């Protein structure tokens, strides 16, 4: 049994260090008491407390002690190992100790911050310290495994985030593959007319970047494609991509659009997705003039040839490049990359979930995205604000927080709605001269020049009514309300309820995770927060990293975010990927498993358990062997081995048993 063994050996000399973390730990845990307690434990040669162990002086102290007191093991009681394990391993190494002769005790996140009674919190800290001191004796000298990093990068999602990340990486000389689900890159931004707070035109700043992507020698652009499988590990990912058929050969089409004119449908008659259904398109189409790549595609839902096979195919005939191929099938491609940037973006709130605002029931009610197209010079109305019934609105109401800040829909503030509502208010007023009312709960304009933009709108005479609109109805109580849409709201600053008749209602919809965010995160083996956005590794210190090394996130797939922040984050993600690649190699945690051959009974229990098929059976020796390059260190095999011949580094049975005894022994 473990404990006897530990008693026989002469105990290695342990150095114990406990951190106050300013007052973070010290305010709830009696640091001195723990330090004294540890000093008296068997094998402890040095026991110290210090205000900030992670600071340089703190690390120096450790390194110095290791040398002076010939310490053979190191235990630090401080914050979470997820934060500072590496720091103290380095300190150990500095002192000339193998970094894995170290064990960290989490008394901040797991004790000081979550308890209210100092006495019991201190007891807990003692137990955990005792366990670590007992465990660290069994630690072995280990070395990190180095593996080369593939210099190529995959960027998933071709919105402004993906575009910026791809260009940054490509400009640094890395080979980038940009995969986009839609037929063109550009994302939501491509649909906008102007951008807040500067009101510069979205197309003017976005389209140059889009064509730069297309023409960049280091970027392979795969639109109308989706990642279907991801294997491997940091620095060495194997990715499978499915490319949907466009029924037009991408390399042949030059985007002359002759085929669209030639289509048997003389008039466009199908819902135009890019224009939010406000415009119409033909079965053969291109999303918008600056679409990238500028390649047409055929919609199998509406194309007669694809549905019935009975069409004269004038489109194909009109194409002098012979680019049409109605037999085109989806194809799958594989690529090897070292790092992946996820920038899969967001979805806007589905207003059908808020029937009280009458979307779909009253033609005068629009979503913000629809209005983006409506005020867009290159939109279906060339920027003229015309309602579905052909009239021009004299009064417009913009309802903020639709699908935000509401326990019944989404609890969070979507962060961009206040600002884009201000922008739309300005544009609508500018394009139509209508009276514009903004109905807001709290005005959130925290960005650079944002408050100034709000001030500009106030000056333009836009009405700002602080209150959440209850409902939009066609119920008139006074003559001037007849034939109008009536919004009922409390003017909370005036302190009474108002009824405001308008011709047009704009629903400022909030931002949500993509509907398939859960599948995507599973595919890439990362996490999602409770609201469904991708989970960053640390909210402040690792905002673009994930818990899976080599996979980074940027833009609104991580949380609602506007363009400036998205671009900044995309740059950060690219930089993280670069620092990984340019290091040339990664050091993997040595927590892999290995088999002690003489103890292996050859029962084969472990072989099928390994999810990475790292375990093979040597028929000659009748023993199992583990390929440590493939092993990712979960330890499932170690737990299952009947003869106990499988050992997982850093999590050996001895280590865990002694830890169990440690936390319980009194």
């Amino acid at each position, binding site marked *: 049994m473990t404990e006897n063994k530990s008693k026989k050996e002469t105990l290695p000399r342990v150095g114990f260090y406990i951190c106050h973390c300013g007052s973070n730990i010290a305010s709830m845990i009696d640091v001195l008491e723990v330090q004294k307690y540890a000093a008296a434990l068997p094998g402890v040669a040095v026991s110290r407390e210090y205000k900030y162990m992670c600071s340089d002086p703190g690390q120096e102290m450790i390194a110095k002690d290791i040398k002076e007191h010939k310490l053979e093991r190191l235990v630090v009681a401080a914050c979470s190992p997820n934060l500072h394990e590496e720091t103290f391993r380095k300190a150990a190494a500095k002192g000339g100790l193998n970094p894995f002769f170290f064990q960290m005790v989490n008394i901040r996140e797991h004790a000081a911050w979550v308890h209210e009674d100092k006495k019991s919190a201190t007891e807990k800290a003692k137990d955990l310290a005792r366990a670590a001191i007992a465990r660290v004796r069994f630690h072995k000298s280990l070395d990190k495994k180095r593996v080369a990093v593939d210099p190529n990068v995959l960027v998933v999602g071709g919105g402004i985030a993906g575009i910026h990340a791809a260009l940054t990486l490509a400009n640094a000389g890395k080979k980038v593959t940009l995969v986009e689900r839609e037929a063109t890159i550009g994302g939501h931004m491509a649909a906008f007319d102007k951008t807040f707070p500067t009101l510069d035109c979205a197309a003017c700043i976005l389209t140059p970047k889009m064509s730069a992507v297309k023409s960049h020698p280091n970027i392979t652009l795969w639109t109308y494609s989706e990642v279907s499988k991801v294997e491997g590990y940091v620095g060495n990912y194997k990715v499978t991509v499915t490319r949907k058929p466009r029924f037009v050969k991408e390399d042949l089409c030059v985007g002359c659009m002759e085929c669209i004119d030639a289509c048997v449908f003389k008039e466009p008659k199908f819902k135009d997705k890019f224009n939010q259904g406000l415009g119409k398109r033909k079965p053969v189409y291109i999303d918008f003039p600056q679409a990238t790549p500028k390649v047409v595609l055929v919609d199998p839902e509406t194309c007669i040839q694809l549905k019935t096979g009975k069409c004269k195919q004038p489109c194909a005939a009109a194409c002098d490049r012979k680019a049409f191929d109605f037999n085109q099938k989806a194809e799958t491609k594989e690529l090897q990359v070292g790092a992946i940037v996820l920038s899969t973006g967001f979805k806007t709130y589905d207003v059908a979930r808020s029937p009280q605002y009458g979307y779909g029931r009253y033609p005068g009610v629009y979503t913000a995205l629809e209005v983006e197209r409506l005020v867009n010079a290159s939109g279906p109305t060339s920027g003229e604000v015309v309602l579905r019934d052909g009239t021009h609105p004299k009064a417009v109401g913009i309802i903020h927080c639709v699908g935000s800040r509401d326990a019944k829909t989404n609890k969070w503030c979507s962060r961009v709605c206040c600002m884009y509502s201000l922008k739309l208010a300005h544009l609508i007023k500018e394009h139509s001269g209508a009276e514009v009312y903004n109905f807001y709960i709290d005005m959130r304009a925290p960005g650079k020049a944002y408050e100034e933009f709000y001030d500009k709108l106030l000056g333009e005479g836009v009405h700002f009514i602080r209150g959440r609109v209850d409902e939009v109805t066609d119920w008139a109580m006074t003559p001037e309300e007849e034939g109008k849409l009536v919004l009922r*709201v409390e003017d909370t600053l005036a302190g009474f309820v108002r009824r405001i008749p308008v011709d047009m209602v704009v629903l400022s919809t909030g931002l949500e995770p993509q509907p398939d965010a859960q599948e995507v995160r599973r595919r890439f083996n990362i996490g999602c927060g409770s609201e469904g956005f991708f989970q960053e590794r640390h909210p402040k210190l690792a905002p673009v990293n994930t818990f899976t090394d080599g996979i980074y996130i940027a833009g609104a797939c991580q949380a609602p975010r506007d363009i400036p922040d998205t671009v900044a984050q995309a740059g950060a993600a690219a930089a993280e990927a670069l620092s990984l690649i340019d290091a040339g190699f990664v050091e993997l945690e040595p927590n892999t498993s290995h088999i002690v051959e003489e103890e292996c009974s050859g029962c084969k229990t472990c072989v099928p358990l390994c999810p990475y098929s790292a375990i093979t059976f040597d028929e000659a020796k009748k023993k199992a062997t583990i390929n440590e390059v493939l092993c990712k260190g979960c330890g499932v095999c170690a737990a299952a081995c009947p003869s106990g011949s499988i050992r997982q580094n850093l999590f050996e049975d001895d280590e865990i048993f002694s830890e169990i005894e440690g936390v319980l022994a009194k």
Partner: protein
Amino acid sequence: MLEQKVKYEGDCDKEFAKWVTSQTGGENLRHCIQCGICSATCPLSLYMDYTPRRLINMAREGFKKEVLGSFTIWLCASCYACRVECPKEIQVTDIMYLLKRRAIEEGVYPRRFPIPVLAREFGRMIFMFGRVNETLLVIDLFLRTNWFKFLGMTGLGMNLMRTGRMSLIPETIKNRAELRKVLDALDADEKSKREAVS
């Protein structure tokens, strides 16, 4: 004559605020973001001296006098529109209820709202018969509060007679004894509670 509007901290009763949030239904009160959708959706807010939103804020700040003295709580018709709309799931209707109860306990409800009288007569009638005869209840109510308003109602009375929708004989249940035991038990429970406190 001008009325001073400034409020001093001494004017609010933090205990009252604590009490409201400690009651069933009052839990989420502190989370109110003052969006005012409760007032917007309330069919009665146009008659209220304070809109529901303002009342909520006054209650959580402890302006007991103003809250319990307000018409607002008596104008609530328990249509639950606010409760359904509230983005913070605040049970506004139930808060109105518990404020009514408190106002009655402290005897500060405005005289022109005979709801407490109605409730009392209602209770008395149930205790006697187990069921309520609307006609008797209404007559009783008006006689106790404002009898000439009652005269104004005779037209309706005649109509109800004509259409056989009005009877002057109270409906009663068989097992009145059982029901009384139940109600008495509750009173006893309440009493023991109060004694325990004092």
